[in-house]
């Protein structure tokens, strides 16, 4: 029981492959704007059977089909509930981690499709920020691009909130690490 409770209290920012003495400085995900857009679609799916129920209420009442309606409604909500959490899971696990030693890009494309790449801070050369368009400017998010010492290698944090602050933080960590 203690082990189960500790899952919610003691894990901190621990991740798989974290080295001893490694400290998480930034944990970044895409801006919530993208997940909110998807959740709005799910809200529409939640409302759909309720509207259908209201439209066909007289028919359902006349033929005594309300129990069947409740069953179909609950089955629909079961699927939507899982759909919502599938979307949230992929969003939550798609992260960029900046530690005091390296930068980790954890891309979750689906449940069993995952790409993890890492970059040591010593290889970071340049960090640039790109904010494109009205939505990105208004909601304060954008891309952070990290140029590495390799030929054309680049690390890109896509649509992260407050990209300038992220850039400053990365540069600060790189400076501390290299000097």
């Amino acid at each position, binding site marked *: 029981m203690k082990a189960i409770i500790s899952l919610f209290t003691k894990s901190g920012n621990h991740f798989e492959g974290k080295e001893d003495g490694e400290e998480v400085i930034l944990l970044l995900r895409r801006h919530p704007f993208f997940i909110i857009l998807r959740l709005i679609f799910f809200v529409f799916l939640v409302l759909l059977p309720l509207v259908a129920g209201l439209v066909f209420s007289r028919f359902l009442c006349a033929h*005594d*089909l309300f129990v069947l309606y409740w069953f179909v409604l609950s089955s629909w909500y079961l699927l939507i509930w899982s759909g919502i959490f599938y979307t949230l899971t992929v969003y939550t696990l798609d992260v960029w981690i900046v530690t005091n030693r390296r930068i980790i890009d954890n891309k979750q494309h689906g449940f069993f499709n995952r790409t993890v790449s890492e970059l040591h801070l010593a290889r970071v050369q340049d960090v640039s920020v790109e904010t494109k368009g009205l939505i990105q400017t208004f909601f304060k998010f954008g891309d952070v691009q990290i140029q590495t010492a390799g030929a054309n290698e680049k690390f890109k944090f896509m649509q992260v909130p407050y990209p300038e602050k992220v850039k400053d933080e990365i540069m600060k960590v790189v400076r501390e690490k290299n000097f």
Partner: protein
Amino acid sequence: MDFLTPKIIFLFLALLAVLVYWGFNFVIIYHLTRFGIGTQPKKMAASFLMGAITIFVFCVTTFSYIDFDNLKSKSEILINKFLVK
């Protein structure tokens, strides 16, 4: 093959759907607790599990209230009614 009545086939399919559903849910919970960083994904997994159990219980309860014989006769009446039209 006498044991393969429509009722048995229906129950088998229902059981299969339940297994697939809970298998999918297990994968969500597994990913959130194993790969999630920090406590937030674990809390999310817990709320997902509680919600899924609640809706599942509601679904099973409503399913148990369905009178399939009555439904069959009603569907025949409705089909006849629409076909005559």
